[in-house]
């Protein structure tokens, strides 16, 4: 139904998002994670869990489990791909850039986001923004807990 296409909707559900939704990367759990985050969105019931293996200040491995909509699952999957191998500082700064994009700041260098840039279309759907940021917030909490444990 080409004549009937809804451009904003196509922007929300970009092909790459649907691909991550259907074929999630890094789904599952780690045997011995040294940081774990659990998050949920009280407003819609989405739930996510992130397992991390952090070595020498870097994310050496990461897995996720999620119940939720295509956006929250795709976002979680894309996030794990994006952060694997990054230093904790790099993760922080990537999250800042990502939030900047989701909350519509103009100064964001979307180039730096790689595939994550595909989530831009969510901005037009304010209620879905929380779906896109859930995994990231959960990751951040896990890293904070990890930081405290060492601190």
């Amino acid at each position, binding site marked *: 139904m080409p004549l009937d296409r809804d451009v904003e909707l196509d922007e929300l559900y970009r*092909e790459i998002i649907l691909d991550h939704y259907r074929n999630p990367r890094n789904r599952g759990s780690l045997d011995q994670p040294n940081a774990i985050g659990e998050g949920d969105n009280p407003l819609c*019931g*989405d739930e996510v869990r992130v397992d991390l293996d952090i070595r020498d200040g870097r994310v050496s491995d990461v897995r996720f489990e999620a119940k939720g909509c295509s956006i929250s699952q795709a976002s979680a999957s894309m996030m794990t791909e994006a952060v694997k191998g990054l230093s904790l500082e790099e993760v922080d700064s990537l999250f800042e850039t990502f939030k900047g994009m989701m909350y519509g700041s103009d100064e964001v260098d979307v180039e730096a986001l790689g595939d994550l840039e595909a989530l831009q279309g969510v901005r037009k759907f304010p209620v879905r923004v929380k779906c896109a940021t859930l995994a990231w917030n959960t990751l951040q909490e896990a890293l904070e807990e990890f930081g405290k444990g060492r601190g």
Partner: protein
Amino acid sequence: MKPSKAKTVFDVQAIRRDFPILGRQVHGKPLVYLDNAATTQKPRAVIDALVHYYEHQNANIHRAIHTLGEEATAAYEETRAKVSQFINASRPESIVFTRSATEALNLIAYAWGRANVKKGDEIVLTQMEHHSNMVPWQRLAQEVGATIKYIGVSDEGTLDLDGLDDIITEKTKLVSVTQVSNAFGTINVLDKIIAAAHRRGALAVVDGAQSVPHMPVDVQAIDCDFLAFSAHKMLGPTGVGVLYARYELLEEMEPFQSGGEMISRVRLEGASWNDVPWKFEAGTPNIADVIAFGAALDYLSALGMDNVRAHEQELTAYALRRLRQLEDIIIYGPQDTSRRGGVASFNYPDIHAHDVGTILDREGVAIRAGHHCAQPLMRRFDMAGTARASFYIYNTLEEVDALIEGVEKARAFFSHASG
């Protein structure tokens, strides 16, 4: 497929003209509002009642010696009488105005529960309760050391009453059950449960948030001790809830909140209480909205609650029929519309309800997607949520068609996009 030609029980087009919001467009499409279990739209008469109040009568009530205050007080108390009639209470003093059904349930838990439920006692709920009829009891139980027992839910989404006698026992102090499930639409048969409660000397609370707006409800026939519901789910303004209670219970109970209006005498050493029901209405109440709620009750009474029920049943039957024809779809709750309110709750196994909701919204169709504040019920069915369309007096068969088209579009969108 064309909409059934069956003539509905009242003139829906005339009703629609009474609801200004139904003229609105969403994303360039006419609004199709199917989220009535969350809140209903308001007829012109209710909006006008608010405007009239603020333009002509606005004053604080009960203690005013001036004309505005006198008029406002009379109008406020008139709604109490209307509510009482609407649910066939034996007297208006059985009606307490709260902010919401939620507050009405909390009032019972605080004012009756704290005084009467003790360590070792039991409270009986069902697995399909709205969080508002679950969390207040969980907190009460935890505080006093009581236990909560749940009546289970069958695969069909109905209450499993086998073994009721093992659940409601000598230890039971209170049984609280919803009359209609907001998540699936299941209409619960209450008489067995309430009779069992009373036989054991327990009180029976009915969550009427999804029943009072949609069907005739008679508190004397149901024989409940408490009933809670919300004005905003039955054409009324936001910010008004109702607690019905047997008058003698209200007399025995200590107040919930305290302050202005609910006192008789205040001394530095302590205070004594006003009469029932004012004892339970501390502070300036939501005067304007209570008065406007009276206009909502008038509107529903003029239609007749039997007709409201019949209209919703017709829409629901049609919606279920059309949904069943969609491939792969899962529909929750009883298929027999005589046992089901105006709710259609469904899922595609491979499309999340949120995604269905978003695509429907682009078509102007407003439904709810999620756990419907009934997470334990969702878990019972091992899912995060459902897509829920819920109907009211102004909905039409054509709007059901719009829903179905939207659902088909969601399905097509996801398969097209994946193709």
